[in-house]
């Protein structure tokens, strides 16, 4: 399933988060969460191990609550397809500080590599743009990724959407913390909010 023209997912996420500063990273269930964990645990990481289709909406709620805070959702093509309507909801709200990155391996890697809809006709960049996210693009090189990573911090220029075709090889799992209460309390604490 490897494709030499496609990027390595771990390198993609490491590049996106290398100089993250205060940005919050939300990982969709599956390999995207492992990629974020592999880039390094962080108070401002929110990992999902379920709730398929919800990653973008969590990012939207946070981005609207904290408009000066860069929020980046990193998820896979299958998770994004299940929450495709949320692109229309983001297109309506136009949160300027929200970035959505899809790691597109054109397959459901966690469940045996069955082809996803993006392997055929579904074009997530086109869908995002048609939903009103005018800054929607495909990223194909590490150089483009480095430039894009800097733009995450421009909280007055979003929302932005990027689709990155990645190699479909299954990498070793890097398990993130799975305790939701801990992760949420830690994230809120880093933003200055106390437990109830």
């Amino acid at each position, binding site marked *: 399933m490897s494709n030499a023209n496609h990027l390595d997912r771990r390198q993609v996420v490491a590049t996106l988060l290398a100089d993250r500063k205060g940005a919050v990273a939300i990982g969709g269930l599956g390999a995207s969460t492992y990629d974020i964990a592999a880039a390094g645990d962080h108070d401002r990481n929110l990992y999902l191990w379920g*709730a398929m*289709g919800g990653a973008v*909406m*969590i990012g939207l709620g946070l*981005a*609207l*609550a904290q408009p000066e805070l860069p929020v980046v959702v990193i998820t896979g093509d299958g998770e994004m397809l299940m*929450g495709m309507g949320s692109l229309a*909801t983001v297109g309506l709200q136009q949160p300027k500080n929200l970035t959505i990155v899809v790691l597109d391996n054109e397959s459901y890697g966690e469940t045996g590599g069955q082809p996803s809809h993006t392997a055929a006709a579904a074009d997530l960049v086109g869908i995002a743009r048609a939903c009103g996210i005018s800054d929607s693009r495909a990223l194909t090189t590490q150089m483009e990724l480095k430039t894009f990573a800097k733009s995450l911090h421009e909280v007055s220029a979003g929302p932005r959407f990027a689709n990155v075709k990645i190699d479909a090889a299954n990498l070793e799992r890097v398990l993130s913390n799975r305790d939701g209460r801990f992760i949420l309390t830690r994230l809120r604490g880093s933003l200055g*909010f106390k437990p109830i």
Partner: protein
Amino acid sequence: MHAHSDASAEQAAERTASWPGEIFAILKRLGVRQVPYVPDAGHAELINRVLAEPSMRAIPLTTEQEGIALLLGAWAGGQRGVLLMQSSGVGNCINMLALTQIFSFPFLTLVTMRGEWGEFNPWQVPMGSSTQGAFELSGVKVLRASHPSEVREVMEAAANQAFHALTPTAMLLSQRLIGTRVFVK
């Protein structure tokens, strides 16, 4: 003293408003900022009030489950919210309701009921009949208001347990309260 008299005036206004007005006043007093919704005729007055309120953001959804994830994000960023939907939307939420148990965040939803009390449309009956059960199986406590005189009290209870005890809560607004939709003359 001034703050106290303001609060009294606020509460007096809540008591004289329509029941959607009472709900709105309580949400405003409790600092609710994000109001995701899939529209329903029974929520129309409340949605209009939210749309006219600068401190609140009304967020139309494509499907109800989006609202659960949105409210988690809002809380991560320090804001309270409430999800508005009709009973037919509850079935769309089941898997996403896992977020309320995993993250223990304040989750409150107000659900207008169909498929009961004099319903005309048979398609509303299956989901309306399983709304309460579906919530309870998903770990969400259910409170219900069926008469205008009890809306304020039930709303206070629902908001208190959701926001202060982190108890995921759905408040059902009975079809008897909203009125049966008339399709034929």
